[in-house]
């Protein structure tokens, strides 16, 4: 289960990443939109997904033309939920619905011939020649559909008679016109009644194939969704995640955040990939201002969320146990509608996460909890949380500026940041031309790598230096010195 508010999902970049996973068929899109969460009990199902995606990545690199062809076929599928429901209820299908089924049957046949692709995707799509024959009684091999004369000798006869009347109308004198029109109208009415009989008969005959149709449509969705995830993983250069047992540490190597990476690329900056290990218990992430703590937290959370949604994460290698739930919270401002203050909401969230973590193995991620609280009490609260989760079976990851003492089950990691000598170098380069220039200078010297810290991590103290570099008023800086 994911416990992430809509706003936090957006901050995490989850909707954008899922949008980038492009399915071609309505069946694939529906499967994707379900957002199935693979809990620890679904481990073998998830392993099957990853095995198929692994084979598909190889396949799409070796046979790009076949994949493009499959994408075209998948893109021609239509959403037949209403039609299949009609078939299930034995509602006589409309001609357009029969056409839709005929088209789908042809597409199943096309896909069933793509054996290597289906094999790689571990999906079975079967041709249904008997059902196809029902909708193509004279083996015309055309893609269109109408109620053919072959379905009913009576229908054929009525149509012949109508045609004959129309011929007379075209060539005969106008005095007979009214009677011919009346005769034609009567034949048309009879034809409609016979067509209804034919449609009912065809519906009954097709109902025998309902289960096979459903199985095929479901397989199309699986194929499409797996192919889309494989393409995304290939684009990211992602490695296949290993699924570990309970109690193991989650590790992510060379992870990136696809959305932030793309934003950086647009302004000619590079995303520095990071590696991190999250053992059970508490992991405290510290680092300087502008050091990218929030980005690191987002990257690791997004990666682990994606794994449990059946996607490869944007990391060259990853290994993780499966969590019962993943909770991520970064801002509580948007939850004030419940009548609680920002702090009240935050505490409610902390309370609920803690209660859940006592019963289940979760991954709880908080970006700078208690940031709006007085530092003394906030330090106590954050320290207590670290100790509480240090004893739980799941993992608790926080970024914070508050000091968290070392203790059992509490690991400290930090973003390396900028060496103070480097800050002196920036200062010596003179006044930046613009805020953008100043930010660029700081970013250029920032070491974004995450390193493990043994024992108690010292709290970074470069906030005032960075404020100075960004041109904070000199009087304010002087007052800071006085204090």
């Amino acid at each position: 289960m994911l416990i992430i508010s809509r706003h936090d999902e957006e901050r995490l970049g989850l909707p954008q990443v899922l949008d980038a996973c492009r399915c071609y068929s309505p069946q694939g899109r529906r499967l994707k939109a379900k957002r199935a969460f693979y809990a620890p009990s679904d481990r073998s199902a998830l392993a099957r997904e990853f095995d198929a995606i692994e084979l598909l990545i190889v396949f799409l690199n070796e046979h790009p033309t076949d994949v493009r062809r499959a994408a075209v076929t998948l893109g021609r599928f239509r959403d037949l939920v209403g039609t299949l429901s009609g078939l299930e209820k034995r509602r006589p299908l409309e001609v357009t619905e029969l056409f839709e089924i005929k088209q789908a049957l042809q597409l199943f046949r096309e896909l069933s011939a793509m054996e290597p692709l289906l094999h790689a995707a571990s999906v079975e799509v079967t041709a249904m020649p008997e059902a196809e024959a029902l909708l193509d009684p004279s083996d015309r091999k055309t893609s269109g559909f109408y109620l053919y004369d072959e379905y009913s000798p009576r229908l054929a006869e009525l149509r012949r008679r109508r045609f004959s009347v129309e011929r007379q109308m075209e060539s005969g004198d106008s005095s007979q016109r009214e009677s011919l029109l009346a005769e034609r109208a009567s034949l048309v009415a009879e034809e409609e009644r016979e067509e209804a009989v034919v449609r009912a008969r065809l519906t009954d005959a097709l109902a025998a194939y309902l289960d096979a149709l459903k199985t095929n449509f479901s397989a199309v969705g699986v194929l499409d969704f797996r192919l889309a995830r494989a393409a995304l993983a290939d684009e990211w250069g992602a490695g296949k995640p290993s699924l570990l047992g309970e109690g193991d540490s989650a590790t992510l190597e060379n992870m990136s955040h696809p959305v932030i990476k793309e934003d950086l690329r647009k302004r000619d900056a590079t995303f520095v990939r990071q590696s991190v290990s999250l053992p059970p218990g508490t992991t405290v992430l510290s680092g300087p201002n502008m050091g990218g703590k929030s980005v690191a937290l987002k990257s690791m959370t997004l990666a682990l969320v994606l794994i449990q949604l059946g996607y490869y994460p944007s990391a060259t290698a990853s290994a993780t146990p499966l969590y019962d739930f993943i909770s991520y919270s970064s801002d509580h401002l948007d939850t004030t509608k419940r009548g609680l203050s920002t702090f009240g909401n935050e505490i409610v969230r902390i309370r609920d996460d803690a209660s859940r973590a006592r019963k289940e193995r979760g991954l709880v991620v908080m970006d700078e909890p208690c940031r709006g609280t007085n530092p003394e009490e906030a330090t106590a609260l954050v320290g207590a949380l670290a100790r509480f989760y240090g004893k739980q079976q799941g993992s608790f990851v926080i970024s914070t500026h508050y000091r968290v003492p070392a203790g059992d089950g509490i690991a400290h990691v930090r973003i390396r940041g900028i060496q103070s000598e480097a800050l002196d170098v920036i200062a010596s380069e003179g006044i930046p031309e613009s805020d953008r220039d100043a930010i660029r200078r700081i970013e250029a010297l920032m070491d974004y790598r995450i390193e493990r810290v043994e024992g108690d991590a010292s709290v970074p103290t470069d906030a005032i230096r960075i404020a100075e570099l960004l041109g904070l008023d000199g009087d304010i800086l002087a007052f800071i010195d006085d204090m």
Partner: protein
Amino acid sequence: MKCAPRHSPDFLVDALGLDSLRSLAIIGTGKNAGKTTVLNHLLSAVRQMKRKRVVAVTSIGLDGEDEDIVTGGAKPRIYLTEGALLATACGSLDKCDAVIEILVLTGIHTATGEIAIGRMRTNGYVELAGPSIARDVATCERYCREIEEDCLFIVDGALSRKSPAGGGLTESVILVAGAANAPSLEELAIETARQVLFLTLPSVEEKENKIFSEVMEKFPGHRAIFLSQCDTTGKTIRARSLPLASVIGEGKTIADEFRKDDTALLLRGAITDNVLEYLLSDSAFVDMTLVAEDGTRFFLSDKAVRQLRQRSVELAVLSDLSLPLICVNPMRRDGTTVEREDILEAIISVVDVPVCELGPSFV
């Protein structure tokens, strides 16, 4: 001679160049002008041509229904023969009494259902309920050409503020002037002359057309585009544009953006008296070109046209239309008819385009 004999399929074939014409829209001076009757005559003419051609028909919105759902009067039905293609909504298919083979479901959805492309497997009456926007009509034509590359694509179009059916969409346009659309023949003649003026407007110069097209491509949501010359030689043209959901109701916004050195203004949408009200109250709005996407986008009164003329504001279009024929229909709204000769004379006296009266279509 402008007035051609009645019931002459050859006349239609020659006047419209049906042998080689790729697409055609039929637009009327109003509701019940007689477009369907003209369409049936056209279909009959194509059937009798020496060179066999497949027709593909669609409509802008609903047409061909037994009864006019607006006025309640009986309407002529559309009769298609075996082999013809049609693009109509699924909801209309069961109101067609022909056998229709479904070839494509287009994914274009309308109030009457998804638009299907079908082929007539028998002759029969059909109800057309085509797409309501120009882009979707173009998609339907593309589907039809995938099936029959050389088909004659006919759009039974409406002339209304919402539904474009003209320049850029089809090669030619037929205007149907119906006695039902005006209280008197004199007024019908005035209305027809005004429509002809708009439908035969020239296109703007190539250089300006190119700039407008570039701005439209870059800013698809910008519906007012102003051109001005930024030097005295007039060689350098600068474009400005306004993001607007519609030009209707935005007359003041457009007028506020107007500058006295503007030389051309393109309004993408229906250009009405109300839209121009604020511009016309600005004395600097003179000596320029007012441009619409095509001639069917102008809905201006005679008074507004006169005012524009007095200020040397020329009207022009991005896509010019070919108007090879005007058909008149003597049927009044109450079912009675005016004299065939009278309506022909009334219209012929005010336009310089061939005019004909085809009579009822017995289908």
